[in-house]
């Protein structure tokens, strides 16, 4: 370590994977295919330099296949770099996959001991924590049943509970906030916030940029195996999103033309059964639409009569949350829509607003409608 203040130091580190289409697994294959083909290499990470200080919370962001998960595995010492160095300082726990090493025939309690010991805890250390682990998992009397009888939610709860209660100084987390129901997710999130505010070092890999923004003040953006940007989360995420949209524009030809597209449309205003006071000249309706094609049109109908096409606008929150959906092609730079209705068109009483997203062939991708009241 160059600096003892650092929890993780990555120096000129490169990692590549051997690409083998038919890997020789047996001796025969090894002999027969000896020098058969020159192995090809896939450079996953190139010349990464990174320092993470003790107590920092850092997010690794990047698109699928950018190498961020590999970087996390390298920090865990599951993989080893081809060039350069990765050094860590302090007890390290990684939550790459929850419940790794659970034995289905053993009880929850036994598995706690086994799983916690994988993280390097001794018996007495586990004894001290076991109550808080069981409490956090909220398994009640099920804790003494074999794990194979658990529902998948219970399984994940137990696994997360063990991992989070290990009390490591460095915590590496790979996309795990999809655990259990809404309630438990919030609980996990709170626990992570608590850990962040303590002296723990946290490194998170996540696609959900909202979580990143809330948990980590600092983000590191990995782009095609290179460290593209490192700094304040807000800024890095903004640049990252800009780049997604830009890359998407470049690869526009890649959008697969299909006969039928999937997508979704939402109306944010008006809400169902909302009452609108008619006191201005026009009223603005808005929402968002995302689909596999980015040439979709949003048509607006009021009480079944066609009013016109909505104007498309940028919506950062939608791009952040749903940018990866619909086959990754949903990065429509302008997912939002808005439409201003003249007040003269709205008379007091009940109305129905319907929006349709339509592809370039004029086929409806999705439609939605809401009912609302107008009052003067």
């Amino acid at each position, binding site marked *: 370590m160059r600096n003892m203040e650092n929890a993780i130091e990555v120096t000129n580190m490169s990692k590549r994977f051997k690409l083998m289409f038919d*890997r020789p697994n047996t*001796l*025969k294959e090894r002999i027969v295919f000896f020098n058969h083909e020159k192995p090809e290499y896939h450079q996953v990470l190139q010349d990464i330099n990174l320092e993470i200080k003790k107590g920092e919370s850092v997010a690794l962001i990047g698109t699928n296949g950018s190498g961020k998960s590999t970087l996390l595995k390298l920090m865990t010492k599951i993989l080893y770099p081809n060039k350069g160095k990765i050094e860590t300082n302090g007890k*390290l726990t990684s939550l*790459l*996959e929850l419940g790794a090493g659970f034995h289905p025939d053993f009880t929850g309690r036994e598995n706690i001991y086994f799983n916690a010991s*994988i993280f390097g805890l001794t018996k007495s250390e586990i004894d001290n924590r076991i109550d808080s682990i069981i409490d956090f998992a909220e398994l009640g009397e099920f804790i003494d049943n074999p794990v194979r009888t658990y529902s998948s939610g219970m399984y994940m709860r137990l696994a997360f509970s063990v991992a989070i209660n290990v009390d490591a100084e460095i915590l590496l987390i790979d996309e795990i906030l999809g655990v259990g129901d809404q309630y438990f997710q919030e609980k996990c999130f709170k626990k992570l916030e608590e850990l962040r505010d303590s002296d723990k070092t946290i490194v998170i890999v996540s696609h959900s940029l909202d979580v990143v923004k809330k948990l980590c003040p600092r983000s590191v953006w990995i782009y095609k195996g290179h460290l593209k940007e490192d700094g304040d989360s807000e800024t890095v995420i903004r640049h990252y999103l800009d780049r997604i949209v830009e890359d998407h524009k470049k690869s526009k030809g890649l959008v697969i033309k299909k006969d039928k597209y999937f997508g979704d449309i939402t109306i944010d205003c008006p809400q169902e059964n909302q009452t609108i006071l008619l006191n201005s000249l026009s009223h603005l309706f808005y929402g968002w639409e995302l689909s596999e094609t980015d040439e979709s049109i949003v048509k607006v109908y009021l009480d079944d009569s066609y009013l016109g096409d909505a104007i498309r606008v940028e919506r950062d929150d939608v791009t952040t949350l749903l940018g990866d959906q619909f086959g990754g092609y949903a990065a429509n730079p302008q997912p939002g829509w808005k439409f201003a209705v003249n007040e003269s068109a709205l008379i007091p009483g009940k109305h129905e607003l319907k929006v349709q997203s339509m592809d370039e062939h004029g086929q409806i991708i999705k439609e939605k409608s809401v009912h609302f009241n107008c009052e003067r």
Partner: protein
Amino acid sequence: MITRLKEIYSYRELLKTSIKKEIRGKYKGSFLGVLWSFINPLLMVLVYAIVFPFIMRSSMPHYLQFLITGIIPWTFFTTTLVQGVGTIKNNAGILKKVYFPREILPLSVSFSGLINFFISCIIIVIFCLFGGLGISWHLIFVPLVGFIQFLFTLGIVMALTAINAYIQDTEYIINFFINMLFYGTPILYPEAQIIDSGAPAFLIIIVKLNPFTHFMRIYRDVFLNHCIPSFSSIAYVAVVAVILVIIGYLIFRKLEKGFAEVL
């Protein structure tokens, strides 16, 4: 090396639970459970005890005890080896997801073998007591020799399990070698018999160099002959064991970095 040992020590709870899992998990679900690790060698003894006196026409006194003192240490070696060779491959799932000192896996298999062996020694003692041979204070050598055999096995297991991750034939090749070694070791027959048999000189040299010939000598001196085992035999197997552990460890260290990629 020292920091490595320290790290393994800090993971001692994992080692302990893995050993337990190894012993308990192996026969989990079967009706007789852990008992199988004792029934297996006993059945093997039974077969040889019935068949061999007729084929070999040997009228050795206490042949049954002679067999048991050979077969139980031998089972310790073979079950540990067979289980150990696959241990990296079989734990691929966990190796790819969590970090822990990888040596824990071969270590826990070997330790569970050693524990099984010590328990099985009770069977030998029972047979000696009821076979009219009795026991003597020389039994105190058993832990020492058992530990040497443990190191010996551990060295081989570390090397082979690491190689097996890359070349999966290893698992099948060793079965052949185990079989060969079985007949090259004085388990079913006394050592003197092969030396007097007029076999080619190179075969006799192989048998004499075979560490298991020396292991058998030591175990039989302790259990059957009630005398202090020959120092040269103990020294020989101890030196071989230490060399094997060092070589095995070096091979393991060299290959372990690629485990997550090749599995």
